[in-house]
Every structure is written in C-alpha cells, then in structure tokens.
C-alpha cells in the first residue's frame, strides 16, 4: 500500500510539475492527464473505487481528450518565458499558498497529532465501513438525490446553459452570410 501510494503520489507530483514547466502546450496537457490518472490511483487506495473510475472517465477520458484535440489542431507555438518576479507570478504564488493552507486546514479538521507524530481522528458518518456496507454507488446516488438535490440540479442547469451557449455561438451567422 505504502509503496503504491508513494509511486502514485510521485507520478501525480511529476505530472503537476510537468503542467507548469512544459514549454510545449501538448506536453503540458499530457502531464495533466498523468496527474489525473495518478490521482485516480490514490482514490483507489482510499477505497473510493467509483470516484476513481469516474475521475478517469470524465477527466482523463473526456475533458482532456478535447483539450489535447484542440491544442494539437490549433498548434500554438512554444510558451513565452515569464520573468520570475513578474506580478502574475507573485499573484499565482500567493493563490497557491492560500489554497494549500485552506485545503490543509479542511483535511486536518477533527484530526489531532499524537506525541509520536501519529494521527488520531474520529470517523464521520460516511466512512469506508458504512459506505462499503451499503454500496458505494448506492450511497452516492442516494445522497446526490436527497441531501444534495438542489446543488445537483443547479449544476445540471449550469451545464445546460453552457451547452445552449456553445450551440448559439457556433451557429451565429455574420450579417450578409448565406445560411
């Protein structure tokens, strides 16, 4: 387990670094794919099989395919080098630090560190034991359509709006253009 975790975490890290440092856009996108697949392995280790499968199907299999497609077709040139102390670099760094602190704080919620560095924490209502007893997909589906029904529906409306907008933009004719 620890070995697999180490490998997957290393790959995810390398993928993340690759996204930022690759000079060629296609390689940056492919690094992101590597990062996502490695994340799916981490989900598997956390006993979240459904999440792992969906992570690959949706992100690596669908979203990133379109990214790679468009990058390869538009063939953008190499990225321009940014100077290290530019404003956007500083802002980006600040955002990264804030994000790390917030996510770290949320992750450590309810977890205390023992004297020898071991972690203690209580299990919530949705822990691996209860979720696996009820079925992962079943639990997720029930929660999605009861507790989180409103956010779920709002998200689907958002997607619908995006789809309608995309169709409108691609069908719009310039004045004088024949149908």
């Amino acid at each position: 387990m620890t070995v697999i975790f180490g490998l997957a975490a290393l790959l995810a890290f390398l993928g993340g670094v690759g996204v930022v440092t690759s000079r060629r856009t296609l390689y940056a996108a492919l690094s992101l794919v590597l990062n996502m697949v490695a994340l799916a392995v981490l989900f598997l280790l956390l006993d979240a099989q459904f999440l792992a499968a969906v992570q690959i199907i949706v992100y690596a299999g669908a979203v990133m395919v379109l990214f790679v497609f468009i990058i390869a077709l538009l063939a953008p040139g190499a990225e321009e080098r940014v100077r290290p102390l530019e404003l956007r670099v500083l802002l980006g760094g600040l955002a990264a630090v804030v994000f790390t602190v917030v996510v770290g704080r949320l992750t450590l919620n309810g977890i205390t560190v023992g004297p020898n560095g071991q972690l203690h924490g209580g299990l919530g209502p949705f822990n691996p034991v209860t979720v696996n007893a009820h079925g992962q997909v079943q639990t997720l589906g029930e929660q999605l359509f009861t507790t989180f029904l409103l956010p779920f529906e709002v998200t689907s409306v958002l997607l619908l709006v995006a789809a309608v907008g995309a169709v409108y933009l691609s069908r719009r004719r310039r004045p004088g253009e024949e149908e």
Partner: protein
Amino acid sequence: MSPAATSVLLAVVVALVKGILIIFVLATTFAYLTLAERKISARIQLRFGPNRVGPFGFLQPAADAVKLFLKEKAAPEGRDHFLYLLAPALAAAAALFAFATIPVNQTICIGGTGGAGPLSASCPGGYPLHWDLAHLNVGLLFILAVTSLGVYAIFLGGWASNSKYSLLGALRSSAQLISYEMAVSFALVGPILLAGSLNLEAIVGQQHSLWFVFLQPLGFLLYFTAGLAETNRLPFDLPEAEAELVAGYHTEYAGMRFGLFFMAEYINMITVSSIATVMFLGGWMAPLWFLPNWLGPLWFGAKVGLLLFIMIWVRWTFPRLRYDRLMQFGWKVLLPLGLANILVTAVFVAVR
C-alpha cells in the same frame, strides 16, 4: 513470516500468475483471430486463404510475428520522438488492461466452508479464487475508463507521425470513438438497471434464469453496433478507409510498432465481445439447461468466439459508411434509441 505479510505475498503471486495468464491467452487469441479473419474472409470470397505455413495454415500467425519483429522500423522525418514511441505502447497497454476486471468464471472457494457460491460474499476459512485479475465493485466502469484512454494512443500516434494522412485518420478516429462511447455507455445502462449492480460477477449471477439479451434485445443490438464502431471495424472503419487515407492513424508505423496497434485493435474486439457476453449472454452460464455449469470458462470462450465470428462476418458483408452518415447514425439513431431503452427499462424496474 507474519500472517499479514503472507496474505500480501499470496495476493501478489496470484495477481502475477493471473496477469501473465491473461496476457498469454489474449496474445494467443489475437494471433489466431488474425488467422480466423483471413480464413473466414477467404471462404466468404470463395478463396482458400493462408494454407502454406503448417497444416491448414495453422503456423501462419507465427510467421507473421517473425515478419513483424524482423522488419525495418522505418519512421517518418519530423516526428515527435517521444509521443511516436509512446502511442503504440499506450494502445496495447490500454487494450490489455481493460481485460483485468472481466470474470470468466464464478468465484471458487478453495478450502473452507461455503462451497462455490454465485458471489464472492461468503468463503469463510478458505481462499476465494476470483476468475478476474481485479475484483472491483465497479468493474464495468473500470473497463469503460480504461478503454476511454485508448483514444490518446490513436490520436497521439496520428499526430506525432507528422503526416497528413495519419493526422486525418487520427482526427476521424478520435471523433468516432468519443461519439460512440456515449452509445456504448447508454446501451450498457439497461443491464445495469436490471441487475442493480456494477460488479460484473453480480451482473452475470443475476442472469442465471434468463439472459439479459432476452430482456434487452435492443440494448444488445445497440451495444454490438456501437462496439463495432469502437473497435474501428467495418462498416465503421472510416479511420483507416484505405481508399482515402492509406491506413489512417498508423500509416507511418512499421514493424512491431505497427504490430502493437494491430494487436490493440484485435484485443479490443475480444474485450467488446467479452463485455457483451458478460452483460447480455450470461457470461459463464451454460447455454442449455442440461449442460454442466462447471465448464464455465469453456462456455464463456464459446460465446466470445461466436460474437467474434459475427464481427468478422459483418466485415465481409456490409460496405463502409460515409463519414457524415456515420456521425449521423451515432448521434441521431443510436443515442436516442439508447435513451429510450434506458427510459423503458427504468420504468419496468420501478414498477416491478
């Protein structure tokens, strides 16, 4: 050695043996599938087919393999070196990996009480031998996830070749795969609703009295049609329409690099047939009531073989579709039919 370490070691050894066995069986089936394709096509066209190497041409695959390995690995100028080499390996890896969760027999309890149950649930004191490499609860989603990564191999292979035929073939192929992936998933929702599970072994277990093909005839037809498109078989083999595109995305590949793409295509055929067998044809269940059920893998293989034969038969029977018709067929026929099938099945399951 502690019990925990022993069980980890056992799991690793079992997984290794299963993995090697799967690769061996798939590679052999692939080799003889190419021979079967040539033999059957020859019969359909009133020819003999390969019959020089060994009796009835049975050693032809070996000769083909030697030829592929020894051929010069010609590669185009101006290619993207890394991606050009990565693409065939990725294609073969995705094709082989997809087979990991397909159960070819029911779980067998070695030692302990409980006996051979239909599901993995009970095997106290013994070792439950699963007949798949990874016994996932979401086995079906895993297969869909891994096969959806095959698009990268095809697209990157065509793009990295720095050739317009390859790029056009890759574009067509990726667009086709993405479009028909929807139809494949929709067609598979029917059996999932009926079985109430994503575990492939549980889905087969639900079919012990009646195979799902009789409850989901439309779903089966939709899946098989979309599966033909997913494996780039005629009448949907637009990506490699030789009259327009030379050989599509693998035009610039030679030797064993081409061989890997070739292998990936045939293994994908086997995977599609296996999924159809598991989801619709009752997996390892005996086809007739008086036949013994303990011959599970044999029945599984026979059903997969039958579907493979139909795939080859279709190839030499139907002409190729035009590309715009192909897209229309996928989006305007298969997809709405799949949705309607889901709706009817869901109502049926809800009122049952």
